[in-house]
């Protein structure tokens, strides 16, 4: 059940935007945005990628200083000249990409730039650690203040950011898609923390396009589309589908996959007792005795919390793991050992990686070059690139996948996230694989583009491709997959058919 809104009716606005407009060359990012947020409110801001959410928050946090219109904080009109001004006004932002120095300890990160000093002006590490521990205790979590941030899990890193904001005595907290890298249990903990903050009177601006989170705690929900405020409503007065509808401005087609319309074919990939060792760690296995079968024309989902071994499993199948796994992998009835991704590629396996920017895209290259990269050695037998042939390959693929781009020679970075992802999937389709491994393919992609990707994945499996898909969003697995395997700490704990699977059952198995 949703908790009732706890907003006192008479609290006065703590933040007020009035007619805020921001133009970038060629784009109006915000036009005439007017709204106010009251003291202690949990205020959600929803919108598709590019709707102007981030621009709005950059203005509020002093990153963007050059805009039209006015911003009022606690009744006074302000114009921040930088993030320090915003911090001084008690506004902190927790960015989607965490801004932490990985090599430094949690305490050092919290006090970065305003280190506590002891006698003689030397740094007082002990005092900073004490204070950090105090804030972590406030947040009911046991993060070691001395632990280097890169050794913390993403969820804990986020808590470091929140502790930092608290130690700045911020009473206005902006959270920009804070859950994009969190597991379900970490999300639950984050919301417990948020709930405590709210009862302490902290105002929270929450940016997200995940409806279940927005509807958990919000007092009011603002929907932005194309830089304009579409609607502001109290949570009780609206519904998730209504908000989604307002965000997109059109009905989202839910991919209605007809179950059993395409019975799966012969087994393509068989995994028997696959194990992957972990060096120098209390938990000895990243993957332990994993066995399953993947059939032609089947979409097999892999669920699991962060660190459960989803990515590691796909890497093992693709020959990309740091050390060779134990156990057997059978492809098309033959036992295979892949020492390098190129061998897996040769054998007909394709991997679309999880972190698109870091592991997938070639940012300096064009759409065309990004698409043809994997296929070039086969397409150009003499090793020379024939421009016309390459162009034809790319042009055909863009039409086939419906990639929206000005031309195939345009830089890949000019495309939206969804279109970039289509290009990367296309890159692998050109190699005509038998097995497609998709590692969280819709991460960071907006709602409309997700639906298109689901349709694409569905088409591919109808064409007889065997697809292994992981996702950090359970509803996604439930809509797309024929079967779902659940990993927990490297072990396979459950397998559900499409009919059996529910979010609760999967979660229960993932934490087993």
């Amino acid at each position, binding site marked *: 059940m949703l908790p009732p809104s706890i907003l006192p009716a008479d609290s006065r606005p703590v933040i007020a935007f009035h007619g805020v407009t921001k133009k970038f060359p060629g784009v109006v990012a915000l036009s005439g945005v007017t709204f106010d947020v009251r003291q202690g409110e949990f205020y959600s801001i929803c919108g598709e990628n590019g709707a102007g959410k981030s621009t709005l928050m950059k203005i509020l946090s002093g990153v963007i*200083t*050059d805009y039209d219109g006015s911003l009022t904080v606690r009744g006074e009109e302000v114009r921040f*000249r930088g993030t320090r001004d915003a911090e001084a006004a008690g506004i902190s932002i927790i960015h989607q990409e965490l801004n932490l120095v990985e090599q430094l300890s949690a305490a050092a990160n919290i006090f970065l730039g305003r280190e506590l000093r002891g006698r003689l002006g030397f740094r007082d590490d002990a005092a900073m650690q004490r204070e950090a521990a105090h804030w972590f205790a406030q947040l009911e979590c046991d993060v070691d203040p001395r632990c280097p941030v890169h050794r913390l899990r993403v969820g804990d890193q986020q808590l470091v950011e929140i502790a930092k904001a608290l130690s700045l005595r911020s009473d206005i907290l902006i959270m920009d898609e804070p859950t994009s890298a969190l597991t379900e249990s970490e999300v639950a903990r984050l919301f417990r923390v948020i709930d405590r903050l709210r009862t302490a009177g902290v105002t929270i601006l929450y940016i997200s396009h995940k409806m279940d989170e927005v509807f958990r705690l919000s007092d009011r929900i603002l929907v932005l589309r194309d830089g304009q405020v579409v609607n502001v409503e109290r949570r009780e007065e609206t519904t998730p589908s209504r908000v989604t509808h307002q965000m997109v401005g059109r009905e989202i087609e839910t991919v209605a996959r007809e179950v059993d319309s395409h019975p799966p074919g012969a087994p393509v990939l068989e995994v028997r007792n696959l194990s992957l060792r972990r060096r120098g760690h209390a938990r000895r296995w990243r993957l332990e005795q994993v066995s399953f079968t993947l059939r032609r024309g089947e979409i097999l989902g892999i669920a699991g919390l962060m660190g459960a071994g989803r990515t590691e499993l796909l890497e093992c199948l*693709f020959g*990309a793991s740091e050390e060779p796994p134990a156990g057997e992998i059978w492809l098309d009835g033959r036992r295979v050992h892949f020492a*390098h*991704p*190129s061998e*897996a*590629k*040769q054998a007909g396996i394709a*991997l679309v*990686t999880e972190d698109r920017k*870091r*592991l*997938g*895209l*070639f*940012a*300096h*290259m064009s759409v065309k*070059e990004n698409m043809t*990269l*994997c296929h*070039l*050695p086969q397409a*150009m037998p003499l*090793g*020379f*690139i024939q421009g016309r042939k390459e162009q034809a390959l790319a042009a055909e693929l863009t039409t086939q996948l419906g990639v929206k781009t000005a031309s195939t020679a345009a830089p890949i970075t000019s495309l939206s996230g969804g279109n970039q992802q289509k290009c990367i999937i296309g*890159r692998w389709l050109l190699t005509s694989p038998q097995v497609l491994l998709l590692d969280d393919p819709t991460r960071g992609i907006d709602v409309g583009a997700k639906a298109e990707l689901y349709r694409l994945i569905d088409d591919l499996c109808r064409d007889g491709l065997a697809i292994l898909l992981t996702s950090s969003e359970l509803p996604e697995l439930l809509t797309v997959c024929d079967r779902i395997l659940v990993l927990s700490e490297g072990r396979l704990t459950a397998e559900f058919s499409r009919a059996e699977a529910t979010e609760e059952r999967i979660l229960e198995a993932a934490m087993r």
Partner: protein
Amino acid sequence: MSEFLRKFRNEVGLLGAILLVLSVTAIFSDAYHDAFTLRLTARAIARDAALVGIFALGAAVVIISGGIDLSSGSVIALSGTLFFGFIVLLAPDDLSTRWPSDSARHFPDTANLAFWIPAAAFVLTMFAAFLVGSFHAWLITVLRLPPFVATLASLVGLRSLARLLVQDITDVRFGQRQSTITIADETLTSISQHNWWVPCLVWLVVGVGLWILLSRTVLGRHIYAMGGNEEAARLSGIRTDRLKWLAYCISSMTAGLAGILYACYIGTTSPSTDGMGYELNAIAAAVVGGCSLTGGVGTVGGVVLGTIFLRSVIDSVAKLFKSQPDLFEGLVVGMLVVFAVAFNELRGAGTKKAFFPGLLGWVSVVVVSGLLGIIAAVTISEDKLRTGLMVGGAALVMLTLKAVLERVQARRAAVR
């Protein structure tokens, strides 16, 4: 046409800069005014540019692939030593200079070399360069040394190795330890000394070869991909380790080629000084030519033009101020690297860019005007002190004005 300009913006810009430098020199210096000296100058620039350009291309391949090769200067010294060393070892005894009383002393006849001797020495030297590149690749891909460290070790180590080898080779062949080897063969030493076109031809061949490799082949595409995003390249099924092997071998073999040509040019190999600091000239040429040290960006055309640009500016300074070019070379290269890279970085920034913000800005105003004053003083032949003070003072006034204006603008923008 506009598509062409956008794609080759860097190359067109460099070409314009080269023409500008040459025409300024032509106007203010009499060196270009008669046909004879013009021809000599053109040849000198072409030869010097070619000698640097050959291994600058190799360095650029490594930079594009996302690495760095600091060893080229020492590979030049080593390969010159090996080339002449192999020749001395292979050359037959010179009967006319045989020591009469001591039959153990033979002197090699290096004045009338049979063709096979330099040819064999060439092949052996290039093979040694290939081994050096392979060694780098092993250090980097198997032992996981950062490229900077691996090639830094070679930079220091190989020069020392070359000096030791010269000692031993001369001991074996001449009976006494020397620190240089000199070859007397006319044909060999005339390469690149009189026949200025030989290095140019080699440069052309290497350039065309690498241009085809980088822009027309799948391997080249893979090199750019690896330089742009190494992990993504590996996960796309590209054998990145093999590509690195190729890149470092290309770099060391072009340096080897240049080392052989330098040795022929001078006629003597002296590993303690040969190619000293040249690795930085090569990297500078690549950077001025548009390569990015973060990898994945750069073209053969850009590097060739970058090299020519650097050499023509060095030559122009020598002509205009009638001084020894090598005295000015470092200063010129350093300034051009700063200008070229800053120019590329600032192209998108527009006019609003503040150059002297904060306390560092004020210190930089003093540093830059001081530098300008000193440069003016050392380039002018008479009245050095007064010129330096005047130029430095004028610069100080102007830059201070600029810094003040920037602050006024910033304040106004903040108030608005």
